[in-house]
């Protein structure tokens, strides 16, 4: 069967830990269902991709850090893209982000949305 594309737009960041596990879990699940999954990080979502940051964010006290959910998604083949403008908002340089994150502009997000069968925003 032809792969189908899904886009997950992640705007939540370290200020709202409880909003930071499910988007990655859903992305991993969709990849397990053989969807081709891309996550687009913008606004505060981009902060989760800063090296070392996700290890310090716990959706549930005493539970698994967001870095574990991110790793599950990467292992499942989810692609990560980050909005260049949002890195400027947070004074981040591309090299500050996790390896493998693709830096893209806003127009790229619109193309992802147009190509995707389903888009979800968190």
């Amino acid at each position: 069967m032809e792969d189908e594309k899904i886009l997950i737009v992640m705007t939540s960041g370290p200020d709202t830990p409880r909003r930071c596990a499910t988007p990655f879990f859903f992305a991993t699940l969709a990849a397990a269902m053989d969807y081709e999954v891309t996550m687009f990080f913008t606004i505060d979502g981009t902060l989760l991709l800063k090296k070392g940051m996700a290890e310090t964010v716990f959706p549930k006290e005493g539970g698994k850090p967001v870095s574990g959910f991110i790793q599950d998604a990467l292992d499942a083949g989810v692609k990560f893209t980050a909005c260049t403008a949002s890195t400027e908002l947070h004074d981040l340089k591309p090299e500050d982000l996790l390896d493998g994150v693709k830096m893209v502009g806003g127009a790229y997000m619109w193309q992802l949305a147009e190509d995707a069968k389903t888009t979800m925003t968190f």
Partner: protein
Amino acid sequence: MTEVRGCNLPEDLYYLIDKHVWAKPMEDGTLRVGMTAVAAKLAGSNLAGVTVKAKNIGQELAQGKSMATVESSKFVGPVPAPVTGVLLRGNEALASDPNVVSRDPYGEGWIAELKPSNWEADKGSLATGADGIAAYQAKLEADNISC
């Protein structure tokens, strides 16, 4: 019943060891398939869902492609097809009680039924019998997995 490192692994089933799934030929030429006791152990004890993707029913899936998904609080992942075949149906009982795949992985906890595309050719890629269980045991020892 054959037990290896605490995992129940019957000799009469056919296993795709790397993916921890089994297949059992039925009298009508179809296959009943599911995940092994090892997969159930890896997924955790309290499963939130075992779901066959409805759109895949009636479609041919290649060996190793996702035919269903397993979710628990600590794990999410695919249940790969043990051989290439057309997905005929999923086990509807799993919707109300996904944990039956842990309690009875080779009985009531079967996951789907497939019409194999070329069983005679594909079964050679699966492990079965005493030799197959020995190969599975080697995998469990290499990965340090016990049930």
